[in-house]
């Protein structure tokens, strides 16, 4: 199994009382609460944590894109990937992902990802996402066209990477008289593409299609949902006529390792609960703007509104598998069980979450790397199959 350190880079020093008062850390929370000096200090701290992951033996690190929020300070994960390209030498760098439909000209993403891939001589893992609902408010992109734009931008980027130009691309949303990207990606035919998702049949059908076989990454969901969606991927692959590899499946989950189960929960509690109940909190109008997803999915979320939008304490979160927390032995055994049950080949461990401070994050990383990660990496992988990964 491959093990990655995934970071959201939250603005951890935010005034949480203000977040609670506004009801969300997204879009409506004024950036007067942001202090430039604190921002610079947090960037340095977080990049240092990711850099140190290489020495600790992680297979890679992951960054992602969010806009106008204290939840994550990476409106451009590509900027962070560029910094990490210089700070690291062996690890994979995962951009999980870039939000394709939010770009006016997604061809710029083909360029920027190719640059990172070249800078790192092929250490880039590319991720494509639609961007979360709140971000459609940020950029004024019509959410009812989100899926169309995603598919069209995907086709444009992959063609820009795999076909030599200049050629013309004429879609409904994106039109380019000349597609002729310099640089082309370092990895051939292109960097591995991962699809992070909160889970939907449409996304699974797309990722698992035999022409693509993209790695599907289930993010921040209860274990039961992770199991369901990974099973759906395997079932869909079988319908398509092939067996999905574990390396095509991944799980992103907050992890905290303490000295004992009790101390782990005590240390992680306020920071996880801040992550879940403050940083991630947003009203349904922001999570699911009109037409952002199928009406069936909208109805399921609206029906589950009470449980989804209420506060959650760390114990039920651990119980549900929305977080893995405990001593190294507990976390290792739990992850091995989950892995045996769910069959995922990639673990994206969110080792810093919410307000988790530097000292606890470092300790978490050290205990995870020493007492959990070796057992996971020793599981090995089934052959990489048809996908070419440099």
């Amino acid at each position, binding site marked *: 199994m491959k093990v990655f350190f995934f970071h959201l880079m939250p603005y951890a020093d935010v005034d949480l009382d203000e977040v609670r008062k506004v009801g969300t850390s997204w879009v*409506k929370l004024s950036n007067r609460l942001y202090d430039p000096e604190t921002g610079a200090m947090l960037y340095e701290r977080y990049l240092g944590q990711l850099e140190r992951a290489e020495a600790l033996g992680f297979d890679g690190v992951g960054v992602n894109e969010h806009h106008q929020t204290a939840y994550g300070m990476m409106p451009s994960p590509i900027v962070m990937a560029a910094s990490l390209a210089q700070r690291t030498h062996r690890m994979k760098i995962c951009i999980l992902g870039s939000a394709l439909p939010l770009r006016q000209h997604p061809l710029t993403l083909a360029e920027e990802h190719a640059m990172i891939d070249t800078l790192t001589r092929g250490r880039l893992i590319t991720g494509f996402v639609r961007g979360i609902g709140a971000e*459609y*408010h940020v950029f*004024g*992109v*019509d*959410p*009812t*066209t989100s899926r169309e734009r995603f598919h069209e931008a995907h086709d444009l980027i992959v063609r820009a990477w795999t076909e030599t130009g200049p050629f013309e691309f004429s879609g409904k949303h994106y039109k380019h008289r000349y597609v002729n990207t310099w640089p082309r990606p370092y990895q051939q035919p292109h960097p591995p593409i991962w699809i992070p998702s909160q889970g939907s049949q449409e996304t699974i059908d797309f990722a698992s299609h035999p022409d693509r076989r993209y790695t599907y990454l289930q993010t921040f969901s209860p274990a039961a949902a992770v199991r369901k969606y990974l099973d759906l991927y395997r079932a869909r692959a079988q319908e398509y006529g092939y067996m999905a590899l574990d390396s095509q499946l991944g799980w992103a989950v907050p992890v905290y390792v303490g000295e004992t189960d009790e101390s782990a929960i005590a240390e992680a509690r306020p920071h996880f609960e801040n992550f879940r109940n403050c940083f991630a909190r947003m*009203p*349904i*109008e*922001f999570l699911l*703007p*009109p*037409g952002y997803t199928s*009406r069936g999915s*909208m*109805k399921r979320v*609206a*029906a589950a*509104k009470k449980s989804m939008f209420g506060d959650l304490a760390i114990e039920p979160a651990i119980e549900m598998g929305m977080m893995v927390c405990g001593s190294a032995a507990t976390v290792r055994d739990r992850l091995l069980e989950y892995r045996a049950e769910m069959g995922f080949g990639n673990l994206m461990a969110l080792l810093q979450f919410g307000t988790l401070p530097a000292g606890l994050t470092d300790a978490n990383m050290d205990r995870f790397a020493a007492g959990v990660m070796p057992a996971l990496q020793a599981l090995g992988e089934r052959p990489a199959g048809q996908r070419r990964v440099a």
Partner: protein
Amino acid sequence: MPGLTRSTETVRGCTVSLLRGGSGPPLLFLHGAGGGGAELPFMARLAERFDLIAPEHPGFGGSDEPDWFDNIHDVAYFYLDFLKHLDLSGVHLAGLSLGGWIAMEIAVRSTARLASLTLACPAGIHVPGLATGDPFAWSPEEICRHGFHDQALAAAAIAELPEAVEADDTWLKNRSSFARLAWEPRMHDPHLPKWLHRIDVPTRIVWGADDTILSAGHAEAIAAMIPGAGVTVVPDTGHFLHIERADALVSAIDAHTRDS
């Protein structure tokens, strides 16, 4: 009092649901973003003097969601086809909010079949410096509170919302179609002001003085762009003028169409 009949019309493959009733000159009423399926008291009042035709826009309520439904211009052209299909002329066109915006988009394209235009707090025009709300950022309850000046009416409207309204099929369909037309640019067409001078039928603009979704200052700004347009401001009234002051809306339409 004549009742309204629910029926459908199919225009070039797109079926729309409509309420129709009364007799007199034809009056086409175009509903706002909340949808048009319900038979409201102001409609019965209008049917006393008009052949009232109140369709649900393509994409809304019981109407189809056609492939061509991409923007406000598509809806305007649809309604020009719709008027031709029903072979109507001398039509008094009235629209509220989103419907007022569509009415302007129709009228800048052709007034050949129109006798007059009444715009009730129409969306569609961005006036720098004037306050607007963002219904896309509001819950159904917040929309009700912003829609009315009289908060007792807002409370009554909230009480009448369907259970789990955010999971309601019609709510989801209407919100999605509203977003398709009005998400970006938010509730306006930046090109529309360039062509409002083309409207050559008598035009009356009616606005609730206390509208917090589109502030009443918009009325004079829009009137200045439409030749000869007059303004009626209704005191102590919010954006849901057709419910809060149905009498004022009906008398404004009545007076305006008699003058026209």
